[in-house]
């Protein structure tokens, strides 16, 4: 799929298609400058002139938990990207993380498709 083909997709499919090509893209409204995540067809103020821009990939952990089951544990975090939007994600290489930690995104390929995960920017794992 070419970038031109991706541009014809709905926002959800386009986001995943970019990820599968190794690009973490989020939306920004040209008229208002608002960033949007997760991808959709309108901003909260109603702007629809959304374009795809490369996410900076840096952010701060807003909230964090560790799901613990008999078959294993994994953390689930909410990250506030520096662009001002929030996303759910995980830090695969640490057990848990402090609220407020600085993190950096990378794309991880899984059997279910590519996903954005994060790593600590400093050694402040909880």
């Amino acid at each position, binding site marked *: 799929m070419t970038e031109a083909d991706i541009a014809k997709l709905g926002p959800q499919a386009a986001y995943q298609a970019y990820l599968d090509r190794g690009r973490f893209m989020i939306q920004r409204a040209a008229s208002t400058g608002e960033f949007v995540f997760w991808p959709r067809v309108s901003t909260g103020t109603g702007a629809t002139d959304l374009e795809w821009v490369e996410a900076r990939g840096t952010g701060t952990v807003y*909230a964090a938990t560790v799901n613990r089951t008999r078959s294993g544990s*994994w953390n689930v975090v909410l990250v506030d990207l520096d662009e001002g939007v929030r996303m*759910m994600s995980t830090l695969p290489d640490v057990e*848990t993380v402090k609220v407020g930690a600085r993190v950096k995104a990378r794309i991880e390929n899984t059997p279910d498709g590519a996903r954005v995960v994060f790593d600590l920017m400093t050694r402040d794992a909880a």
Partner: protein
Amino acid sequence: MSGKGPRGRSAIVGMATAGMGEAPGFSAMELLGQAAVKAVADAGLRLQDVDGVFTATSGHAFPTMSVTEYLGLRPRFFDGTNVGGSSFEMHLLQATLALDAGLCDAALVCYGSNQRTAGGRLVSMSEPQWHETPYKPRHPITAYALAASRHMAQFGTTREDLADVALAARAWANLNPEAFARGPLTKDEVLAARMISDPLSAADCCLVTDGAAACVLVRAERARDLPSKPVYFLGAGAANHHRSIVAMPDLTVTSATESGPRAMDMAGVTHADLDLVMLYDAFTINTILFLEDLGFCPKGEGGRFVRDGRIAPGGGLAVNTNGGGLSCVHPGMYGLFLIAEAVTQIRGEAGERQLDACHIALCHGSGGTLASQCTAILGAEAVL
């Protein structure tokens, strides 16, 4: 006491529960049916008198149709608004509006679930959120754990504070023979419970029970002619900002900050007027959030507010006197059980846990992952 809008226009004249705790051998609809039949009888009415149906369940795509068919009703007004556990506080408002407009004369609000004996886990029709799925959240607890983590980081709330909520609920449950989880519980036991989603352990989670509840509302002028002591609708308010926890603007502030004042404004009541506060305690953090958001203490102070038995029997504020979702009953959507306890207390039928004077009760329902917030206020005839 002055209020607004439909304040005092309707009353709950029949209320019943069925299958509280465990009801082996019964389907969800059978339990709902038992509660409905008992509530209608409590109201001194016949099933055929019901011409308004208000219901939501976790197992029926078209719950008003299913209830109507099962009970052999012929409703001329029905509303199946499904905003999770808060649906039933919303239904009180919808039923009151429909009664007041003459669109129906006897409104049945009902719910039933057999999730405990059917499988022992939370039953949900909730669809996954595509942007969350890659990270395998275990909702609802993951969402509530995220909120708790944020509250702790921002305000210094501790696991001991959360434990105080669980202990207060158990102390009330120990006064309620219908409560499912009874018996002694210590803070050490709560803190040692198995961690499920940090910082929430099994002791921070509501029960998984069976249970059904139903109430019947009529217009206020008709309520006086019926046999049960009427419990009047004084006010209700709703607010909703999100569906996914990712879209909740501030995980420490629910839209109860809006639904509560709306309900209290309609009812014309202040905090000092409230004798009973029923809060949807799916998890211990809920009680803390709703005490703050409904204005019983400043934002961030909820953890300190619940210390030293403040909301336990004999404490300064009567909260969740049935034992709550944590220790009494939680069949998946708990909202109607908040109303059942308020009716029981206002009628003066709460036995060992009866409050000295219970004239006005606030019921606060929460739906989804801290999403839909619906507050309803009920009162005795003396406060009309």
